[in-house]
């Protein structure tokens, strides 16, 4: 009896267990279909931690807002969005490994690229291998996009667009502009900007009197800036990251460099730059991909205007201003949602094709991908710090100030 009873219980337990497994295996695909999984390797620690946290913040804002509204429409079904993120510790190799993990273990439908052209390049190779769509929101170097990849799309526009418009704009304001000194960080994005501005300036008849790169990890610029001073250029154009640019601007002042135009890419686009420099930031110009002063209205996506995004951001960040990283990365998810909705499926190839056909107006501006996957749908603003505020000099449609020459 006892034995029989035990075996009866065992059989019942087994049946129940099998039933549960069967139910789970049936439920699993159903669950997976109800959630759009977006994978994101992020630099949450290490040198790019500030930038990684910016991406994380707006993606959370975006997914909270979209999920609160019931999710996104995919082939008639409302799908919630889940962002699966891992910290790659600002280590490019690790970013690549985590992208593989996101694709294989977490089975994400779409990947978001990490910060910067260098790390995007690594993750793009992984995404291409597995044929998973990858949307990059903070990579602008054409060399990343000109590798023939079919699954890579970027919401920033090509660097060359930022330099040619700037040369034309400055030349128009200051026709006597004759010489430029170019000093850039030897890193994927700053280097490509330095090269692009030299070409654009030469093309417009401006003589490039100094053109040098400084290594990543340089902590002093006095040698280069002393040389630049001795050449008295009309325009000093420096590229790098915030720390380099704060020091560079201060050292220009210390050494008595008196150029009427000082451009620091992309210094003024970041609040840390204007905060770190105070009055010294005045007059510094830059080109940027987006600024919250650009007033796009009646647009698609999670926010229907630039101001709506700005207000939501102020609340989420406790009063901080967003910069182009926030803008571009939030809009990149609008692009993903739009593509999935148009594809009516989360199947990677369908999403990829829908991404390629994107033609979207967002709070960040128009987004339309060119042949190589870069956003070619927009003119990028030229900005300048004037009395501590960011003013837009170009394009004319959204400009709110005239260019100021540094005295």
């Amino acid at each position: 009896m006892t034995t029989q009873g035990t075996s009866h219980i065992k059989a019942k337990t087994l049946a129940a267990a099998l039933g549960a497994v069967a139910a789970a295996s049936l439920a699993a695909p159903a669950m997976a279909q109800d959630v759009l999984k977006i994978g994101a390797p992020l630099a949450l620690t290490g040198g790019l931690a500030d930038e990684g946290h910016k991406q994380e913040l707006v993606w959370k804002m975006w997914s909270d807002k979209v999920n609160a509204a019931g999710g996104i429409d995919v082939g008639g079904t409302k799908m919630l969005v889940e962002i699966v993120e891992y910290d790659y510790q600002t280590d490019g190799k690790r970013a690549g490994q985590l992208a593989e993990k996101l694709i294989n273990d977490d089975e994400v439908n779409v990947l978001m690229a990490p910060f910067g052209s260098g790390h995007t390049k690594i993750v793009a190779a992984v995404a291409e291998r597995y044929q998973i769509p990858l949307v990059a929101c903070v990579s602008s170097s054409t060399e990343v996009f000109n590798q023939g990849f079919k699954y890579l799309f970027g919401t920033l526009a090509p660097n060359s667009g930022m330099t040619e418009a700037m040369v034309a704009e400055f030349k128009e304001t200051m026709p006597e502009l004759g010489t430029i000194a170019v000093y850039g960080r030897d890193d994927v994005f700053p280097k490509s900007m330095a090269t692009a501005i030299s070409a654009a300036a030469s093309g417009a008849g401006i003589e490039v009197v100094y053109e040098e790169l400084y290594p990543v990890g340089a902590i002093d610029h006095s040698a280069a800036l002393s040389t630049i001073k001795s050449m008295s250029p009309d325009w000093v154009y420096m590229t790098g990251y915030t720390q380099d640019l704060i020091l560079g601007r201060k050292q220009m002042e210390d050494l008595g460099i008196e150029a009427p135009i000082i451009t620091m890419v992309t210094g003024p686009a970041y609040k840390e730059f204007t905060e770190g420099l105070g009055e010294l930031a005045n007059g510094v110009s830059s080109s940027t991909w987006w600024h919250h002063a650009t007033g796009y209205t009646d647009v698609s996506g999670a926010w229907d205007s630039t101001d709506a995004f700005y207000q939501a951001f102020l609340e989420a960040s406790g009063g901080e201003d967003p910069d182009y990283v926030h803008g571009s990365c939030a809009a990149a998810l609008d692009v993903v949602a739009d593509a999935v909705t148009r594809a009516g499926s989360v199947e990677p190839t369908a999403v990829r094709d829908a991404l390629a056909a994107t033609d979207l107006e967002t709070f960040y501006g128009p987004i339309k991908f060119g042949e190589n996957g870069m956003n070619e749908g927009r003119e990028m603003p030229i900005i300048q710090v004037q009395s501590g505020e960011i003013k837009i000099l170009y394009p004319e449609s959204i400009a709110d100030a005239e260019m100021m020459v540094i005295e």
Partner: protein
Amino acid sequence: MGFAQILANGVVLGTLYACIAIGFSLVWGVLNVINMLHGSFIVLGGYLTYFAWASTGISPVIILPVVAVALFVLGYALQYLFINKVVTAPVLTTLTLTFGLDMILYNLMTVFFTATPRRVSLDYGRIDALGVSMPVDRLIGMGLALVLTGLLFLVLKTSRIGRAIVAVRMDREAAALMGIRVNHIYATTFAIAALMAGAAGAVFAMVFPVTTNLSGVFLGKAFVICVIGGLGGVSGALVGGLALGIIESFAGVIVGPQNAITIGFLIMLFLLIVRPTGLVGVKGYE
């Protein structure tokens, strides 16, 4: 650009470099420990100075000693609690331990301070003389770096603790037999090195923006300076620092800033081959 300007840039940078390297050299020379924490100590000193200055408005010159003492206490505790346990182990063990501790400190700083560059604004203008333009804050930084280096030199030469450190460096066993508390001396040496790193960070924050990712850069510089100048004394760090500052300044103008750091490394490699003790190092500490 004039020779005087390039030289002046190099000398000012060199004294700051000496200040960065001196604690690292002391720990390496005395404890035979390659302290991977050194760069983060400097960054910590810089951040503490910045936040103290930003929240109170007190001059960073006054904040500097407080920060230095705080780093002294932290350094003593770390050496006494952790590094002393493995100080006689092969160099790879201490290297791994300090590397691990550095990762913790580095990431804690990133979490609490964020990686945003912070700068103490001391805009005192500049002095133009003899064809040289020099910002006053750099001159203050140079002066402080020289005072700190001189003080350490005096402590090691004349004080009781300084003589005990030298004795332990010469012969650990004999020093112990003479009644010197070796573990205490080790911890004190490490603490003095941390104090110097903290002070160097404070000086640095007065001249350059500080971010957490500078810790690796500082560590690399300290390494190169110790090899160029040599271990075993304050003079090695001073000579090595000045040499590197001047080399980088001239190389930056002659072969371009992109190659200046490479030139510094090439000279380091050359010295390693032809003069492993460094320019003024004591034989036996290479």
